[in-house]
C-alpha cells in the first residue's frame, strides 16, 4: 500500500520481540481527578462568586476587627441636640441617629452580633438536623413519628410561632436563639434523611456491613464524607435566613431589647425616622442585603459546584 512506500527507512531490527513490562500495561487511563479540587475549581470559576466571597469575608472581618480597634462607643448618646440626626460627614461617615449615636460604628457592632447569632443558629440547625436525619434515615420505624413531627412544626406559620415564643419568654439573645433553633432543625433533618437514605443501601455501604463495620465508623467514614458538601451548603443557606428572621422580629418590635445592637434593631430604628432622615437606614440595609444575597448565591453555587456532574 502507499503507506508502506512512504516509510522505507524502517529498521528491520526493530521488528524483534520486546520484553513485556507489567507496570507499563497497568498505567491507567484515568485522570488524577480529585473531588475537592474540582469542586473548588468549578466554584471559583464564576467571577460573581469570587467577588461575593471576598465581599463577605471583608464584611465579616471588618465587623470583628472594627469593635476591637475603634474607641467609639456605639451606645454613646449625645446630649446636644445638634448632634442628633446628623447627615453623613467626615466625623460620622453615615451620620448619627436620633440619639446622636454613630451609625457607622453601630452598623459594625450590629453585623457582628447578628452574624454570631445567625452562625449559632445555623450550627445548631445543621448539627442537630444531621444527627437526627442520620438516625431517621437508618431507622424506617421512625418514619411515622418523624413525619408527624415534621408536619406539626412546619405547618405552624413561623411568624406566629416566633411571636408567641417571644411573648412567653423575656427578650434576649438566648430567647431568640431558642425560638429559631427549635424549629429549624426538623427541615434540615428531613433533608439529610433523604440524602442518607439514598446512599445508605449503595454497594459500598453494604460492603462495610458485610465486613462488620460498626455504625460509628460507617457514619464517619462512609456517610459524612459524602454529604459534607451538602452540610456546608445547608449551613451557608441557613445564615441569611436566620439574619433575615432576626431583622424581621426586630422590625415587628418583638426582637431583642432596644439596647442590643443588632442589624434588626438598627434597621428598625432607621425605619422610624425614614421619612425625615432616610440616610439612617442606608448603611445597615446595604450590608444586610449584601450578606443575605451573597450567602444565598454562594450557597447555591457551592451546591452546583459540589455536584460531580458539573465538574467538566
Amino acid at each position, binding site marked *: *500500500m502507499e*503507506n*508502506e512506500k*512512504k*516509510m522505507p527507512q*524502517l*529498521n*528491520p*531490527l*526493530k*521488528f*524483534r*520481540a*520486546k520484553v*513485556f*513490562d*507489567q*507496570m*507499563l*500495561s*497497568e*498505567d*491507567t*487511563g*484515568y*485522570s*488524577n*481527578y*480529585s*473531588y475537592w479540587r*474540582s469542586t473548588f*475549581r468549578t466554584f471559583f470559576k464564576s467571577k460573581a462568586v469570587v467577588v461575593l466571597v471576598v465581599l463577605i469575608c471583608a464584611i465579616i472581618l471588618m465587623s470583628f476587627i472594627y469593635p476591637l480597634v475603634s474607641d467609639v462607643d456605639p451606645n454613646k448618646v449625645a446630649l446636644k441636640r445638634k448632634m442628633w440626626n446628623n447627615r453623613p460627614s467626615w466625623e460620622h461617615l453615615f451620620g448619627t441617629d436620633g440619639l446622636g449615636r454613630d451609625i457607622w460604628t453601630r452598623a459594625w457592632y450590629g453585623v457582628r452580633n447578628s452574624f454570631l447569632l445567625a452562625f449559632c443558629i445555623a450550627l445548631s440547625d445543621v448539627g442537630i438536623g444531621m444527627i437526627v436525619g442520620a438516625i431517621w434515615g437508618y431507622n424506617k420505624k421512625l418514619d411515622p413519628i418523624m413525619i408527624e413531627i415534621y408536619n406539626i412544626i412546619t405547618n405552624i406559620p413561623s411568624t406566629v410561632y416566633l411571636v408567641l415564643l417571644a411573648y412567653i419568654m423575656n427578650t434576649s439573645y438566648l430567647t431568640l436563639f431558642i425560638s429559631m433553633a427549635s424549629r429549624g432543625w426538623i427541615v434540615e433533618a428531613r433533608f439529610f434523611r433523604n440524602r442518607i437514605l439514598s446512599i445508605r443501601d*449503595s*454497594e*459500598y455501604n*453494604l*460492603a*462495610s*456491613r*458485610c*465486613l*462488620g*463495620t*460498626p455504625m460509628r*465508623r460507617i457514619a464517619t*467514614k*462512609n456517610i459524612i*464524607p*459524602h454529604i459534607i458538601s451538602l452540610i456546608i451548603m445547608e449551613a451557608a443557606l441557613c445564615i441569611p435566613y436566620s439574619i433575615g428572621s432576626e431583622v424581621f422580629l426586630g422590625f415587628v418590635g418583638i426582637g431583642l431589647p432596644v439596647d442590643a445592637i443588632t442589624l434588626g434593631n438598627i434597621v428598625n430604628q432607621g425605619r422610624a425616622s425614614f421619612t425625615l432622615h432616610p440616610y439612617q437606614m442606608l448603611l445597615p440595609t446595604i450590608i444586610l442585603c449584601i450578606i443575605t444575597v451573597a450567602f444565598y448565591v454562594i450557597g447555591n453555587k457551592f451546591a452546583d459546584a459540589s455536584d460531580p456532574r458539573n*465538574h*467538566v
Partner: protein
Amino acid sequence: MQHNGHLGPCIFSAKDVEIQFNLRGKTLTAVRKASLDLYQGETMAIVGESGSGKSVFTKSFIGMLDKNGAVTGGQLLYRGQDLTQFKTEKEWLAVRGKKIAMVFQDPMTSLNPVRTIGEQITEVITWHFGTPHAQARQEAIEILKKVGISDAETRYKQYPHEFSGGMRQRVVIATAIACRPEILICDEPTTALDVTVQAQILNLIRELQRELKMTVVYITHDLGVVANVADWVSVMYAGQIVETGTAEEIFSSAVHPYTKALLRSMPQLGVKGHDLYSIQGTPPNLFKEIKGDAFAPRNPDAMEIDFEEEPPLFQVSDTHFAKTWLMHPYAAEHRDALALQDAKEKEKQKPAAPFDYQNAEKLLQVQDLTVKFKLGSREFKAVNNVSFDIYKGETLSLVGESGSGKTTIGRAIMRIYNKVDGSIIFGGEKINGKIDKKKAKELHMQMQMIFQDPMASLNERAKVDYIISEGLYNYHLFDNKEDRLKKVENIMAEVGLSSDFSSRFPHEFSGGQRQRIGIARSLVMNPDFVVADEPISALDVSIRAQVINLLNKMKRERSLTYLFIAHDLSVVRFISDRIAVIHKGRIVELAECEELFRHPLHPYTKALLSAVPYPDPKVERNKTLISYDPSVHQYDAFPPNWTEITPGHFILANEEELEGYRKEL
C-alpha cells in the same frame, strides 16, 4: 476498489475523524483518525471496550457530541455532503433522525415517561414530515405493529412504565425507524436487557433491516452479539479502528494482536481448570499523546517498533484491513514464532477433572428460603421456597435474569436481609434470624461478598489503604501498624496491584483494578466462603478474563468456596462446578455444569441456553431460539416439587412433568 465484497453502494464515509473533548482544562482525544465506510443494506458492528471511543465516534455522525467535545479533523461524508461543515441545529435536523437514527442502550432513559408511547412516535413523524396528526397516528400504529407489539391500538395510549424492558426497547426502535432512516445506529441496544429478550430484539432489528433496506451499525462490546448480527466488523481500540473485515474474517483469522486477544479471552473458549487467556493491564490514557501502537504496552508479544512508530493500515485481503506492524514483511519471523507458540499452548490444555461430590462435605445449606419484600401494602416473594446445598471447595453458580431473586439469595446468606423464612445453615449452625455478637463476628470472618459494580462498591472518599484494611480495623486483626500495612501489601500483591496504589483514591483506578481492590477487601479477612455477586458483569471484555483468573487463582490458593451469581451462562460454564438456574424467585433446575449443558430439562433452562450468544458467526447464524412460556405448567392444579431426578440433578416439576423429563433422559 472494484471488488470489495459489498453489495450496495457506499452511502456514508467517515474519513480520518478526530474528536477531542475538553475536560477540566485538559484535552482528551477520544477518536484518533478513525475511518469507516457504510454500505447500503449491510450491517457493521463496531467492537471495543468502554473508552475506546466507539460511542463518541458514531454520535458524531448525527452531531450529538456533548457540549465540550468537537470534531477537530477529518470528514463525515453522507451521500457526498460533508456533515462536519454543519453549523446550526437546523442543518443537523435534516439528517438526524430522518436519515441517520440512533437507538440507545437504556430504553428507560430514552423515552419520555410522562407521555404515551404513541404520542412520542407520532411526534417524530409530524416533526420531520409535517404529516397531519390523524395520519401520523395511523402510521405510528403501523410501526408499532411492525416492531412486534401486539394490540398496537391499545398500546398506543399507554405510558412507558406499562411496558417491560424488552417491549420498551421495541418502542425505542419504533421511534427510531419512524422516519425510515437509511442508517440505524444501535448503541449497545441489548446490554440492559436479559439474554432471552436480547435475542428477540436482535432478530427484530434484523427483520426490520431486511424490510426497510437499512444500513445498521451496532456498537457493542459483546462478541457474541457481533457474531450473531454483523456482516462486517470493525474493532476499535484507543480511538482508532485497528482492524476491519467481514465477520468470518475477524472471527476466524484475526490479525491484530488486540482482536486476537479479545477473541481468545472469551470464557466460552476457556478450558476448565486452566487460566483463561487474559489481556494484561488497562486501556491507555487518552489525555496523553499515544506513541506507536496503542495496544503495545498490553501486548506481551509486542515488537520494539510498536512502541515507536504508529503502524499504517495494512491490507490482509480484499476486504480485510489491519493496523499492525505484524503485517509488515520485516515482521515475518516474529509472526511465525508467535504462530508456533500459539499451537503449542493449545495442545497442552486438558480440562481439569470435575469436582468430586462423593467425598464432599456440606458447607452451607439453604432450606426453604423465602424472602418477602413489601411494596407499599402489597407483599411479594423475591425468593420463593428455595433449597440448595453448597459443598466445601466447589463453585456453585446461580444464574437468572434480572429480578429473578438471585442477588436476594446472596444477600440473605450474607445476612444483609435478615428477615427471611426458612433456614440458612453454615458449618452446622443456623445463621439467619437473631444471632449473638460473637457468632456474627465469626461469620464476618468466614463469609465475604464481592460486589457487582466496581464503581459503586468502593467508598470514593477513602484511600485504598483504608478500604482494604476496613475489615482488619473492625476486628483488630493486626498487631501494630506495620503488621496491618504488611497485610494490605500482601493482599494487594496477590490480586496484582502495586503497593504504591495504597495511598490513592478509588477514582484513580480503572474498572478492573477497582474490582481487584474489592476482591482484596473481602479476601483480606481470610474467609472460607465468598458470595460473588455478578463480579464481572460490569467489566469490559478485556478485563473480565483477568478477574475470572484471579477468582480462580484465589480459590485454588485459599481453598475457597464460591457462590457465584451471574446472568450469563457462558461465563458460568467456565468457572462453576454446579449451576442453579433461577426464574422468578424459584430455582427451577440445579445440576453439575456439564450435565446441565448436556441435558437441560426444564423449558426455561433450555430457553436460556438457546439464547446465549456464542462468539462464532457460524454457530450464531444457525441457532434456533427456544422461548419459554410459563403457562405450559399447570401448577395451580398440580403444584411442583423440588425433585432429584438423577443423582445430583434437581428440578422443579410436578409428577406429570417428571414423567416427561424421565423419558427425555
